[in-house]
């Protein structure tokens, strides 16, 4: 496929191989992006600034007031129902501090044919996606395992 892939690149001017930067910093491939997944405090911008962006920032008319000190958030966890699906069973415990999901524990995560490897990935996706860059239900390309995971997450989150 390598040869053909190169042909695709040429003929369609796919241009550069789509790198993690172009795909947004949540995406990366083995070869091109050694950096870790972004947390909710990204340290660098994924795309360059547009050239026509204003060179100076408008001065705010009012001085921002200092936000009141947040109340200390309490940590609460809830465990989902066990979700039985085609390849096994998945059960999760979601830990929330305030409104933020701080941890997702896999209480049960079985899958045949090595599919269980997907679960740790799904946990990462669920944690990193809570910034609501997309809705968990709008994930293209994952089927059985993700479905079970999403159902388990819903089951746990509905208890909050």
């Amino acid at each position, binding site marked *: 496929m390598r040869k053909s892939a190169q*042909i695709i690149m040429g003929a369609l001017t796919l241009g550069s191989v789509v790198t993690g930067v172009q795909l947004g910093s949540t995406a*990366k491939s083995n070869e091109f992006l050694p950096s870790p997944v972004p947390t909710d405090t990204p340290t660098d911008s994924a795309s360059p600034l547009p050239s026509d962006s204003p060179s100076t920032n408008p001065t705010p008319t009012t001085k921002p007031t200092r936000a009141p000190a947040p109340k200390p958030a309490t940590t609460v966890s809830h465990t989902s129902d066990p979700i039985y699906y085609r390849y096994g069973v998945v059960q999760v415990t979601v830990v929330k501090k305030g409104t933020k999901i701080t941890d997702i524990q896999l209480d049960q995560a079985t899958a045949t044919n090595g599919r269980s490897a997907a679960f740790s990935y799904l946990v990462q996706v669920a944690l990193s996606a809570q910034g609501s860059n997309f809705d968990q239900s709008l*994930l293209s*390309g994952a089927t059985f395992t993700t479905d079970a995971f999403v159902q388990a997450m819903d089951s746990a989150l509905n208890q909050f």
Partner: protein
Amino acid sequence: MSEFRHIEQCMGTVFQYLGYSDSSPTEAIAESVAVLHEADQTFSLYIPDSPLSRLARGETSISELPEIVSFIWDECEKWSELTDGWFSAMTKENTFDPSGYVKAWATIEAAKKLTEHGISDFAINAGGDILLSDRASNSFPKRIGVAKAKSIAETTDALTVLDLANTDFYAVATSGTSERGEHIWNPKSYAQANELKQVTVIAKDLITADVLATAIFASGSQAEKLITKFTGEIEVLVIDRETEVFATPGFSSLVAPV
């Protein structure tokens, strides 16, 4: 406007509804999922006495079956021609298995039920293939995550998020070996298609996205030719066996800023 969500198991997969509605969406969802189940009853090859199962066993003929079967047959033929034979609803046993096509078609029909009830801000995830309402307002989030092939996911947290707001694209479909293993056949050789890991197609409608994701995946090393044929109609992301990632020129403009 309040948010509604619904999960419906049908066709051996899960249909997830997400939307916003002023009024209760219960009746609309009930009518919508009824469309899915009716399609399943007609076209399932897992239901022994479904019309398609009887057709596959040679117990009946197309002309004796409901008109919708002929319609789907003709549509599949049309798509087979459009894809130079890379999409085919015929199995190697020469039986008719349009399940992939039917899932996309039924999802579009199911979406129409919501629209008829005045619901315009919604999306349906049909087992990983996503339909956005083409009447959705600008306030409806049109961001769609693309899962990457699992073999990549084992080593990295790979995920792309698309933003289809202010575009003519209302559908995203992904074909790959990430979850179901190798389940797509090369319709020309009847070997398992394994030259690519994953193909994601963004299109104006779910049938185009779904059919072309399957066809491009099946075409493997011939993907370039097929993708070129649909230039302007679709944007495509391909992950090959070496986990190299390629995309059509317009794809990157659809990627959501982080």
